[in-house]
């Protein structure tokens, strides 16, 4: 079996909150990502779902080394990504890119769209005529070549997002991290962009790490899904198993909470209501982090942290009392 394109092992990322700037600082540590492991194969899409505080966005940033990780290993094409020099990392950056959530903030308002798309080529010192490449990229994402001269504010949200995608494709990366790429778009526009991701993948064969909170979109596009809660992966496996036979209570609750756009089905199905809110990642609960909202929680859950274990339906989940 070929080695996976991306391998993440025991990733930990903590943030220090500086309570105040001055002489004395009280340190509080936010455990954003705590011991997360997964892999992504060539041409595959891994969906990472979770709510606020789950750490999914941080995972995306860590993969791209936009954040320094606290501990753990991230390997890309077999090469470990920690401790590389700026130049070595820059070589690797050609092969992994990112598309951001906010179509307004992800483009420099003072640069033309064409310059933004060409920026990766410029920074990486790619020789040749960038104009042609930019034109072909624009067409690839469903925009027109003469849009290159325009500025971001002249485009709608969906179009700006396409520009962001074109920029991410400029260096022909093997892996693209998609960080909530459609959340900020109108519903009628989302479908077009989601289709675009699928088409591009069929055509160019890259892998995706698709980070989102919208479970229905993830279901549509992902091959495998990881469910995160408070910095940990609570369930991971292929899409079918996760959506049809979820084994972790949180996954069940999450699926239950997403409203189905069909009044008859939606009102007749049984719903799981979680109590309370997501605890703070500064002080996560002991043992199983989900126990404070779980209807099955016992003392065992507080004293012992469940590990990811293979279930009969094929996926892994971390629960003492799986469904």
């Amino acid at each position, binding site marked *: 079996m070929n080695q996976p394109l991306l391998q993440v092992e025991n990733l930990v990322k903590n943030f220090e909150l500086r309570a105040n*700037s001055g002489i004395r600082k009280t340190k509080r540590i936010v455990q954003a990502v705590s011991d997360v492991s997964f892999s992504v194969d060539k041409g595959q899409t891994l969906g990472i779902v979770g709510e606020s505080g789950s750490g999914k966005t941080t995972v995306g*940033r860590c993969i*791209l080394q*936009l954040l320094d990780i606290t501990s753990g290993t991230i390997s890309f094409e077999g090469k470990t990504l920690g401790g590389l020099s*700026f130049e070595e*990392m*820059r070589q690797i*950056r*050609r092969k992994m*890119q*990112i598309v*951001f*959530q*906010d179509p*307004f*903030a*992800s*483009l*420099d*308002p*003072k640069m033309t769209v064409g310059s*933004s798309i060409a*920026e*990766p080529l410029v*920074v*990486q010192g790619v020789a040749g005529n960038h104009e042609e490449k930019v034109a072909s990229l624009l067409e690839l994402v469903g925009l027109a070549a003469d849009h290159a*001269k*325009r*500025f*971001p*504010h*002249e*485009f709608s949200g969906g179009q700006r997002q396409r520009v*962001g995608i074109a*920029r991410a494709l400029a*260096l022909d990366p093997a892996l693209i991290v998609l960080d909530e790429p459609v959340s900020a778009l109108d519903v009628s526009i989302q479908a077009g962009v989601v289709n675009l991701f699928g088409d591009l993948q069929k055509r160019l064969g890259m892998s995706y790490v698709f980070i989102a909170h919208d479970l229905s979109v993830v279901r549509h596009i992902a091959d495998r899904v990881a469910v995160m809660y408070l910095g940990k992966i609570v369930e991971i496996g292929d899409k079918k198993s996760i959506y049809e036979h979820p084994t972790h209570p949180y996954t069940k609750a999450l699926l239950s909470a997403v409203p189905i756009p069909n009044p008859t089905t939606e009102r007749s199905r049984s719903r799981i209501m979680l109590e309370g809110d997501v605890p703070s990642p500064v002080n996560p609960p002991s043992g199983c982090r989900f126990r404070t909202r779980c209807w099955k929680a016992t003392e065992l859950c507080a004293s012992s942290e469940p590990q990811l274990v293979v279930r009969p339906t094929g996926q892994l989940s971390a629960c003492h009392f799986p469904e």
Partner: protein
Amino acid sequence: MTEFATISPKRMAMRRFLSHKAAVGSCVLLSIMVLAVILAPISARYGVNESVRKPPNTFLPPQKLAWFGTDDIGRDLYSRLIYGIRVSLIIGLFTAVISTVIGCVVGAVAGFRGGRFDDIVMRVTDLFLAFPFLVALLVIRNTLGSIGWLIAIIGDKSSVRFIVFLLSFFGWMGVARIVRGQVLALKEREFIEAARAVGATRRYIVRRHLLPNSIGPIMVALSFAVVGAITAESTLAFFGYGPQAGDGATSLGILVGAAKGAVQTGYWWIAVFPCFALVLISLAINFIGDALRDATDPRLDRGE
């Protein structure tokens, strides 16, 4: 698709600027002033040290011979004002440019690097700001002015060059703060992260992204720095430490400084015209600065 023609952010900002009538008026006023000042030998009616006529020529009130009257040794105030404004504008401009450059570099580096470095730099900035301005100015002036080898570089303590240096020394802090604030805000924006994700160096990001997006606040800071410098020069001159080149050369500050004597003696024109000129210049630059701030408001770049 889009229904508007391509409007670059620069042109949008220009449009917004031009809608501020006070600022546009100020631009016109300043342009006239600058023109008059550049064409000095032509626009001035007399030389800077030239007597209006043979004595009696001292303290003549405004009249056809001398539009703004004459001073204590019979020189035309109008002409002296033109020459004086020239010197002050030069001081103001150079000081503003130098302190803005220093402030930009300090602010951008501190803001972008952050952490301990940022803390140290900002504490140094605070230190500079904490000094009682006038006292520090005078102390530094006298100390540095007596160091022999420095004089060769920054000029004698009565020269324009020295004053520019002195005022820049104390003028960069405001700009540094503004630029740092802007950089801090921009640092977390996704387009910066996108540049990092492609392997851009820090220097590239500062040059290509941070500075162009900070032009607005920088220009505003620049305009206020000009006013600050001109006012500071006037303050110095008021206390007798202005640029004295000897051969009757004057500055706006010196002319304003002469006002203190005029109040008691009743020669009102000695006070009114220079002070009025100073106020007018300050107001004009302030209006322009305000309009610049509105014109370059980053929120409006989103096309909302």
